[in-house]
């Protein structure tokens, strides 16, 4: 049965009515109108649906509404906007770190969690942080370069 959930998304309170077992992804892409998180596999294997829950990367295709309601949710839309890009977003553009771009929001969200915890990661640390995100176009090297560029930009 549908229930009402009070979510905290990108710093704002949002209310959603839905099944407690509905994955957060469908609330984001449906009633909440947040299209950045993508359906890729529905089984935590590709990372296209990544969001942050209390600063940790979570797969929104699996996390249920009931589970998500307890946490602060950050999506790609809360990281930066067209007029106010986050350094990760501008670095992805500058490094041309995508081709089709389907995996891009998930990668930026995951990289945000990394940089929040480790502001100066080396290539291996970045690759390890992104190992559960898939990219089929083969932009891996450019993604790593983009995350490094953003880390430099963010350095105090």
């Amino acid at each position, binding site marked *: 049965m549908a229930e009402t959930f009070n979510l905290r998304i990108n710093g704002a309170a949002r209310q959603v009515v839905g099944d407690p077992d509905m994955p957060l992804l469908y609330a984001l892409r449906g009633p909440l109108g947040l299209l950045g998180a*993508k359906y890729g596999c529905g089984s935590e294997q590709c990372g296209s649906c990544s969001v942050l829950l209390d600063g940790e990367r979570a797969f929104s295709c699996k996390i249920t509404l009931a589970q998500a309601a307890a946490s602060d949710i950050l999506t790609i839309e809360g990281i930066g906007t067209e007029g106010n890009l986050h350094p990760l977003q501008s670095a992805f*553009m500058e490094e*041309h770190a995508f081709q089709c*771009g389907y995996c891009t929001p998930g990668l930026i969200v995951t990289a945000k969690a990394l940089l929040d915890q480790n502001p100066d990661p080396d290539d291996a640390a970045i690759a390890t942080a992104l190992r559960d995100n898939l990219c*089929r176009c083969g932009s*891996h090297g450019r993604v790593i370069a983009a995350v490094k560029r953003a880390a430099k930009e963010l350095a105090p």
Partner: protein
Amino acid sequence: MNGNGKKLPGSLAKDARIASWVAIEADGTVTVRTGKVEIGQGIRTAVAMIAAEELDVAMARIRVVSGITGEVVDEGVTSGSGSMEQTGRALRQVTAEARAALMAKAAAHLGVDAATLEVEDGTVRSPATNSQVTYWELQGGQAFVGEATGAVAPKDPASYTLVGKRMVEIDAVAKVTGGAAFIHDLAMDGLVHGRVVRPPSQGAKLLSVDAAAARRLEGVIEVVESGSFLGIVATDEWQAIKARDALALSAQWEESARLPDEDNISAWLIDNESAAHPVIDGTPQDAPVSAIAVPEGAAKTLEASYTRPYHMHASLGPSAAVALFADGRLTVHSPSQGPYPLARALAGSLGLENDAITIIHVQGAGCYGHNGADDVSLDAALLAQAVPGRPVRLQWTRADEHLWEPYGPAMVVMTNASLDNDGKIIDWNLDLWSTTHQGRPRPTTATHSSLLADWYREPVRARPVAKPNFSNESGAHRNAWSTYDLPRQRVVSHFVAKTPLRTSSFRGLGNYANIFAIESFMDELAQAAGIDPLEFRLAHLGDERGRAVLNAAAEAIGWPPGGPGSGTGKGIAFNRYKNAKAYAAVAMEVEVNEENGEIIVKRAVVAGDAGQVVSADGLACQLEGGVIQAISWTLKERVRFGPQRVTSADWESYPILTFTEAPMVECILLNQPGLPYLGAGEGSQGPGGAALANAVFNATGVRLREIPFTPERVKRMMVAAGRGP
């Protein structure tokens, strides 16, 4: 040809009307129309750069309209690395002609000689009279009249300010901010959600299903059941998913598929009935095949057999489409690579006239060839037909895509060559075996269809019978004809008509297997001749542009490598895509773990010559991404299947290269200002696979001829060669 008998470049020959390609709008923008579509290869950005350059307007003014039937020129399918050659060359010429027309108008308006005018961002100035007029004042909102003639010379490349530079993709902001960038993100009033239930295996028949129970579920609007085709439409997406799962669970099927033994697919290809056709200069002939004959003067004769398994495109976003039936018309927003061919197929499938169908291309996730994009469009149309007036958004599940997309065909390539005493190749033979690479949409008939749902729903239509492909550099024989200077080539394509697994166009078609074989074999011959592999290639390659990419890649990787067997090694490989498009050489450095057989690619270099560079980053991304994808295919990928069912249903059963496995790729672009654009999107996978095999040989002395190079296989080969634990 145009009226003057001059051949117009690219697709301009199909439609020479300037208005078909470019328009100056009243609001100060410029509309550029192309029949090619964006599939992540950056074509929209590249054509915008070409138009902005030739017209002398800012990039920000360009609006690209692509892949909408009825609004753009029918440029067929966006495939075969043809976009820059077909639409790019057309747009360069037609925008140059549009500029000339604008200059003539401006000259008349300002009362000066057109040759004295200067243009900056669409404002035309006469320095002599200190007067000016803009494109928008001259032409805003009025269509260009007349056709391109080919008489206007495009800009001198020496004066380019934009073409050849790095440019951020025109759709980049939406992609990095989570905006609506994809077909999956399309919003429409009244949008409802669809899902389909596919059978457990090919050809399975639906015995029973509890459609009534699914209909009673919350939010369900319609259940579509026709023959063995099942679909559902619901108000929201989660309801559609739950209803689909319930429907799937209640469905009983009769399975009949009989698949070959996956581990012996090479023997299956060779042993099955096949039609052999000699290939001459890239074109198969309907003629007898000659036998291999070792020539006089042969000091050494080598032969080898190389195989690739079935591969999947494995788009990261499963295929999706949005369809609307209203007032007897069908509109499908689709990620198809061929909007016009899809419209013609749908017309036959649905009993509609061609002009009652509009296909609007919206970007999907990268497709790398013929994936589920066309099939999902028919699925969505069938569901939309059941709920007229409501747009239906249908997204395939991950398993739908993995199990039902058309695969890249397994292939066997056998080579045989003889060397003389000087280490020169004096005889060359290549025999290839493959099922069809041609499964793209054709017009649906009363009995046959190329679209998946038509094989299951009533009236059931059959898959078109696969036929040998006699086109130049197409299908399985793409790049089977060697680019090297060889005194004699005997190339034979063995076409296997049976398709136990549905196969179609997969990035590069036969190029990947053929170049893997040719470039591995070149290394084997070099080894036999006792000559450095790079030197051996150069001794058989007169084409200066080919030599240049090889030398550039070799220099960047640090050539020559050490002798074989140190555990780390370097390899190199080369091709000219389709023997007519971009040149690419790939060099790699690998480390092989002799304990567990794991191959680590430490570094890769790709050197490419695609003629005049337009969008430097876009081109580099295609070449680099091709190398990474080839490493993934070659190290990890094969479609798994049992006697009846495909079992690669997700990323665990079909793993691809991850961030911790992908090397950094260095890209070297050899720009050729003023020379024609050459297609490059499929240029680096063939040499990518071969460079990897060659590097492994250099590292271990073990020659890998069977893709993928899984740790188990590598270990087995090492043990057989007396190496490793």
